[in-house]
């Protein structure tokens, strides 16, 4: 059962990744060019999923959307973990006032709505994929810091850290050689769940027009475009909605599966 979860997650994530990679080189139709004569076609051939209100092939737009999703996920999760993990480790290892300062700052960032941050960035620099990535990344830093801190605290209390210090390992040596490898599974799980959150956030931001500007397709702005045809052509909303749901589900399942797979107690048994 647990393994099925991991496999299902991997399959869905692989689907997104492969689609995104293929989209770099090839899409069935031009994802941007407006063809007024082909507006709002239903699923069929050659437009497998039909066309949208501008007559553009939906499948092609979805593929390009997968590319955006992947880039946003990687950059924002990367930013959050590169900043959050070392901060969390520092807080967990040093404790005292360092811990207080880092974690209270994390609380403040956590309390600050990501949408507001995205709006601010978009207002100052113009809305783009980059501002969305930064907003999502910054908003996710506290989650990574907390996970890293909790893990580091636990590892620091273990006998093997005491043994390592008794062998003359320095503070930094303990961090790099013992704390990081032992919390890596936790970080991996957090990254996977964070990826799912990033997909949702990006969809929400581009739905609001705070991320990738048109005409570049994203799942979020496809949803927005479909809104006006909700009664006449409901399938328009179904496809990007389904894409978002499946991608988020995939990364969540992968995260849960990884958690079980990487649990040291379970590893011990196998």
């Amino acid at each position, binding site marked *: 059962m647990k393994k099925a979860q991991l496999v299902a997650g991997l399959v869905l994530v692989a689907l997104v990744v492969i689609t995104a990679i293929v989209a770099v080189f090839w899409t069935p139709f031009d994802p941007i060019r407006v063809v007024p004569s082909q507006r709002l076609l239903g699923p069929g051939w050659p437009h497998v999923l039909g066309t949208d209100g501008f007559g553009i092939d939906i499948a092609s737009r979805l593929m390009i959307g997968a590319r955006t999703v992947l880039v946003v996920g990687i950059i924002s999760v990367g930013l959050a973990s590169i900043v959050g993990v070392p901060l969390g480790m520092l807080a967990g290892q040093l*404790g*005292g006032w360092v811990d207080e300062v880092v974690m209270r700052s994390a609380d403040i960032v956590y309390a600050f709505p990501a949408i507001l941050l995205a709006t601010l960035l978009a207002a100052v620099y113009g809305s783009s994929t980059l501002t969305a990535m930064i907003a999502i990344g910054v908003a996710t830093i506290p989650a990574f810091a907390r996970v890293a801190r909790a893990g580091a605290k636990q590892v620091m209390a*273990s*006998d*093997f850290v*005491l*043994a*390592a*210090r*008794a*062998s*003359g*390992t*320095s*503070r930094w*040596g303990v961090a790099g*050689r*013992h704390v990081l*490898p*032992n919390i*890596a599974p936790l970080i991996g799980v957090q990254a996977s769940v964070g990826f799912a959150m990033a997909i949702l956030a990006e969809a929400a931001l581009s739905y609001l027009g705070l991320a990738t500007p048109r005409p570049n397709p994203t799942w979020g702005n496809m949803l927005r475009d479909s809104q006006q045809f909700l009664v006449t052509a409901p399938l328009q909303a179904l496809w990007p909605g389904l894409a978002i749901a499946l991608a988020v589900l995939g990364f969540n399942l992968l995260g849960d599966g990884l958690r079980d797979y990487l649990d*040291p107690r379970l*590893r*011990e048994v196998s």
Partner: protein
Amino acid sequence: MTLLDVRDLSVSFGRSRTPAVRGISFDLAAGERLGVIGESGSGKTVTALAVMGLLPENATVTGSISLNATEIVGLDEVGMARLRGDVISMVFQEPMTALDPTMRVGRQVAEVLRLHQGAEPGAARERVVSMLGEVGLTDPQRVADAFPHQLSGGQRQRVIMAMALINSPDLVICDEPTTALDVTVQARVLEKLDEVLTASAAACLFISHDLAVVSQVCHNVLVMLDGEIVEQGTVADLFNRPQHPYTRGLVATARLDQIEPGERLPTVEDFHARRP
């Protein structure tokens, strides 16, 4: 020559008024083996951690600990890290948790070598395998490539011994190194420890609550009770002429083989009533 000289050592934690260790003094000559006996909470491990400079940050240490004429109390972390694993090392009680589960054991042993000697990876491997053989591990090549969870408790404790001994330290602190092992494995590990300590001529501070175990390894013993040293002497003296009532109780309970069948077994409380 005095290797370790502890004077008036007191340790207390946080705001607690009762110190865990109060004003103890003892010394240890190069190559000497000193047993420290006492029950849980008597301050044995705190003493050991104070010598290693590994007490938690809320600990207050007063008095003096000098190792090879270097004062350890108040020494900074960098200076202390240089001594640890090189001049003093420690064998821990819990073999199941004292090794990093994510690291192959060979690398963990090699790490100690690298930290203090800057050994080349290839040369380190050779030295590690030979050290693992010296502590009595059969098939040291395989053990070096194993993760901790693939080894038994006895094997892990030998790996920990190898880590503690690979840099030929002047002083090895053993904190109940065999308590977590079953009796047959315990006897073999003790024999091996005795052997490698003799071979390396290292001094040893051997902490245990078991007088019988200490008598196998040590020449001298000190008995700790409630953070104080209540008695000190050679193993033979302590066994034959225990002075303090608590020690008399310990000796009596260590000689259960001399009790006639049907007689009640003695307890430490028969000799030394605890303060309420």
